[in-house]
């Protein structure tokens, strides 16, 4: 093998500020889950009931390594540029080369915190949640594969490896949504998720190509350095940014590619928590944050990001208000929160976006796992209309979910409060009043739907199936302990890294990463003034959150004298409310008919087009081919007739032939 294996593996010497140990550990960070996947998948059924026996320990070790790497990165051990090294040359195609390389900087570390922690907790949680699933080795294998992909995604040092990981997480999402493959809805949802994601990936892929054709490299640092000097037309930068953003829209389920995420709830709940709340769906946010130096060069692209983000936020929140499936409410909530993050990215509030990403990762993970626990308790029932009054029966779940709800609603001192407030505040202060305004409306709606959820699930009258009602019990410790562990950051993460505003740890960590973009944007923020504009904004946020909560409580909670007298039975009041806003209710309940539109466009019309093309293929294209063949044979059959079998006719033919030849000699010859 002399020549080519060596050349293939030949790589440039990695530039590293840190030692080989760190590089090895970072490599292990992705290698371990991959190995866990491979082992679990290969051993498969032979793991019997202890399907988790490889996957979960692997994940815990990965988490520990992750903690170390995070500490190193955030502790400044890797310098401002971060740890950057290359494993091998993945694609050597002439002047197009892509290395399988890793980059660990502040942004990576911030993501790692969420990914490894939530990932590890979901793994543990799944031991309990999936305990009764016969083929759960598959589940754990997929989970490990997902961790591998997700870690690769955040660790990638160039666009193409990121893209690869991007697709791989999409694959895992597909596999896990379709975990209960016998359920048609699950299979359809899985497919839908993947395909809709791929729509975005068309843009992402083209964006990558555009970057390479303009600057000749795909390495993040090199691209960001080269791009401003490449002398590109503004429209080209905008084009690149929007193409990349298309990918983000798909992966983070922003309008108009948001339709897959609610359906993705067909997957097991731990999956919803891990992939569709805490990690994968954040990849879009991560991408835009990572490429902030590109976006920052195009005001138009930024505007698009902000618009799409805030529009998705309000759209999803409006839908969340009327859904009855507990997981779907959370899914739309996730959409809405992701919309916040994009809005933040669009206005240039990068720190706030990542900050919210982190807090959201924890509290939404918590909420999903909590909902899983609830669903478990009521025997796999997800319809909130068949729940109610559960708060005494599953107290740990109840408390932790309450913490999560408070966090997401933006009640002061819980995690979400800080991050959301930072987004809204910065939007306002950066001149995006409309973003702020819509954001505030969304905040009301958020509080409302979250407490509607809490009310219908835990506080309102019980509609639980009587057969089930007696058997309801709290989930096992493997499930409750992760809930508790997630509740802690949901309470304290905000204050821990986000206080003081614009000076918290998060700003220190991410400062170097966003430095370039901030400079390009040239944003000048006034210092934080708690007794000035900031205080006003903060007050507004808190106020609307409380309004939303109280409204929800009035319709869906149990009676608390202070919060208003109960005039009618609750169900009746909800009906009245529904009737009053019938049109809005229908729109919300039917998710603004996006699914129907898509069905019409892609299934009906698309299907008809495909069928028509097939008809075209069989009858026209192939028809032409067969037509030529038939024509040939037909001609043969006609010509055959001249062979009459009669000598006279033959002789006549010869005589005519002779005449023709003679005439041609006498008349047509060249001379």
């Amino acid at each position: 093998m002399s020549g080519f294996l060596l050349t293939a593996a030949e790589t440039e010497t990695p530039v590293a500020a840190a030692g080989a140990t760190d590089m090895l550990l970072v490599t292990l960070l992705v290698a371990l889950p991959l190995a866990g996947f491979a082992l679990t998948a290969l051993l498969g059924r032979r793991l019997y009931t202890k399907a988790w026996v490889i996957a979960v320990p692997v994940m815990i070790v990965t988490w520990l390594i992750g903690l170390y790497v995070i500490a190193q990165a955030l502790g400044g051990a890797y310098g401002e540029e971060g740890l950057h090294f290359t494993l091998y040359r993945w694609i050597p195609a002439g002047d197009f080369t892509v290395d399988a390389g890793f980059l660990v900087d502040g942004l990576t570390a911030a993501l790692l915190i969420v990914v490894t922690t939530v990932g590890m907790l979901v793994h543990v949680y799944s031991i309990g949640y999936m305990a009764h699933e016969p083929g759960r080795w598959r589940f754990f294998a997929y989970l490990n594969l997902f961790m591998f992909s997700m870690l690769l995604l955040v660790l990638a040092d160039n666009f193409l490896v990121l893209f690869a990981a991007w697709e791989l997480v999409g694959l895992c999402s597909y596999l896990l949504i379709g975990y209960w493959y016998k359920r048609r809805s699950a299979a359809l949802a899985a497919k839908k998720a993947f395909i809709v994601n791929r729509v975005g990936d068309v843009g992402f892929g083209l964006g990558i190509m555009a970057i390479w054709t303009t600057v000749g490299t795909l390495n993040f640092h090199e691209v960001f350095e080269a791009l401003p000097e490449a002398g590109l037309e503004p429209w080209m930068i905008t084009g690149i940014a929007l193409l990349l953003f298309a990918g983000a829209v798909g992966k983070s389920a922003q309008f108009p590619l948001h339709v897959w995420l609610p359906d993705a709830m067909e997957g097991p709940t731990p999956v919803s928590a891990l992939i569709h709340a805490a990690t994968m769906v954040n990849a879009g946010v991560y991408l835009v944050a990572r490429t902030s130096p590109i976006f920052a060069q195009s005001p138009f692209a930024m505007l698009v990001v902000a618009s799409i983000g805030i529009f998705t936020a309000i759209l999803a929140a409006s839908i969340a208000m009327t859904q009855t499936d507990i997981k779907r409410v959370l899914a739309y909530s996730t959409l809405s929160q992701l919309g916040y993050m994009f809005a933040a990215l669009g206005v240039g509030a990068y720190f706030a976006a990542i900050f919210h990403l982190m807090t959201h990762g924890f509290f939404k993970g918590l909420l999903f796992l909590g909902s899983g626990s609830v669903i478990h308790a009521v025997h796999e029932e997800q319809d909130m209309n068949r729940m109610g009054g559960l708060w005494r029966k599953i107290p740990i779940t109840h408390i932790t979910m309450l913490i999560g709800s408070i966090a997401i609603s933006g009640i002061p001192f819980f995690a979400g409060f800080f991050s959301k407030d930072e987004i809204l505040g910065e939007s306002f202060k950066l001149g995006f009043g409309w973003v702020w305004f819509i954001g505030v409306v969304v905040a009301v709606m958020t509080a409302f739907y979250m407490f509607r959820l809490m009310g219908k699930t835990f506080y309102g009258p019980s509609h639980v199936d009587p057969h089930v009602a007696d058997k309801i019990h709290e989930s096992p410790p493997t499930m409750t302990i992760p809930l508790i562990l997630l509740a802690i950051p949901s309470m304290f993460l905000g204050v821990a890294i986000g206080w003081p505003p614009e000076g918290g740890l998060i700003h220190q960590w991410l400062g170097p990463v966003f430095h370039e973009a901030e400079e390009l944007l040239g944003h000048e923020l006034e210092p934080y003034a708690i007794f000035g504009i900031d205080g006003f904004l903060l007050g507004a946020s808190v106020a609307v959150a409380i309004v939303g909560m109280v409204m929800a409580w009035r319709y869906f909670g149990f009676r608390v004298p202070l919060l208003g007298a109960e005039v009618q039975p609750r169900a009746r009041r909800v009906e009245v409310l529904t009737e009053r806003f019938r049109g809005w209710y229908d729109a919300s309940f039917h998710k603004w008919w996006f699914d129907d539109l898509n069905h019409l466009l892609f299934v009906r019309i698309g299907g008809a087009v495909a069928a028509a093309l097939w008809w075209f293929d069989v009858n026209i294209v192939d028809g032409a081919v067969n037509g030529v063949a038939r024509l040939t044979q037909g001609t043969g059959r006609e010509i055959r007739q001249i062979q009459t079998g009669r000598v006279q006719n033959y002789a006549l033919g010869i005589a005519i032939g002779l005449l023709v030849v003679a005439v041609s000699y006498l008349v047509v010859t060249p001379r």
Partner: protein
Amino acid sequence: MTNLPILTLITFVPLAGALLIAFLPRGRPDLARWAALITSLVSFVLSLLLLPAFEVGAPGFQFKEQADWIPAFGIQYKLGIDGISLALVVLTTTLSWISILASFGPIKDRVKEYMISFLILEVGMIGVFVALDTFLFYIFFEIVLVPMYLIIGIWGGANRIYATLKFVLYTLIGSLLMLVAILATAFSFQALNGGNWAGAFDYEQLRGFGFDPGFQAFAFLAFALAFAIKVPMFPFHTWLPDAHVEAPTAGSVILAGVLLKLGGYGFIRYAVPLFPDAAVTFAPAIIVLSLIAIIYGAIVALVQPDLKKLVAYSSVSHMGFVTLGIFVFQQQGLEGAVLQMVNHGVITGALFLCVGVIYERTHDRTIARMGGLAAPVPVYAALLGFFMLASLGLPGLSGFVGEFLVVLGTFDVMPGAAFVAMLVVVLSAAYLMWMFQRVVFGELSDFLRGIGHHLTDVTPVELLTLTPLVALTLLLGVFPGLILELLHGPVNDVIAAVSGGTVIAR
């Protein structure tokens, strides 16, 4: 290496095997099977021996063998390989033994004849890739037809005769016109060379000869038609679904895995470097046709009711990338095109094997009758899923890199075309996943329930045929450099040819 004529050995070992099998007793099909397998394995191992000995980056062709054949016209028996041929030769030898092994079970009738046909087929296929004489190339190109004709026609499905005649006639029309062009090229060379026939069929001499532009147009069109039918490009593709549907499993594997590559290889080896000016002239048209093939094939694949037809139309789509990549005349595009050929060979070959596995058990390929295979045959479902993912271009598996490079190369030259080609990312996911959902997911269909205990998971033999392809798919997805490194030199030559780097021979 020594002076061992290794390319000749690789090419003709299967022929020796075929002759051997011809003299085996008729009543012992097992002997024929094993003889064929061993022969193809010998050829395979020999082709693997090329890998360490091959000098990456060395210019020109290696392992050259040269002997006069018909001196009166300067026709030679001349073999040699460069990186492109090497990759495709190894692909061929690999798929050959896999196909033969995969035929052990399904082929029960006239095993002897089948194995002989298959081995002769292998001779032709390898020959095409190693020939360096246009006449010799043509001969190998045509030899392939006969055994394939028999394989589809004798061991195929119900409508096999229609399909096989269509396949042969369609291919013949193209290739015979190419023969005219080959002869005309040789004559043109000879005439410009002072009436000397020496080298008139020698690829290395013809390449860069710089034919008259008017002549190039004619010759290029003739070559291109032959290859376009073989690839097949839209609108010359309609023989493919028919042939695939009727062919036995192994036939489909070879058809998709190797035969289609003859077209792509022909473009990159002959049509473009020999007639670069004409290639540049016609490139826009071919690019448009490629784009149509890519999108059209994928859309039509969506609504196919038959598994094999679906994969066949997906081949049209995937092979569109090959022609697209070649005719953007850009390094990434060209390297991607060759890589795509190898990948498509592996992946689509494997997909056909997978279809064959289920057909063996159910004698049906109708998607609508399938459903819920995941539960009774999990290993099978996993393998099908794996290759489905590879086929839709999942990064990390081999399908991705080739397609990406092709689109990248296209983007470099004409971004609009790249956008169109990129749409297939969605479409391929749609048709493959929809197929997968209907076949593998859901409750077990009534039809399959009727199959009962015959619906067994993959047998060890089937596993043995699929595992190497799984490994290759992974290997080439993670280390595409293994192939790509081979391609830089040859691809640069092609680019040099079209970018006016032609040397007018004197």
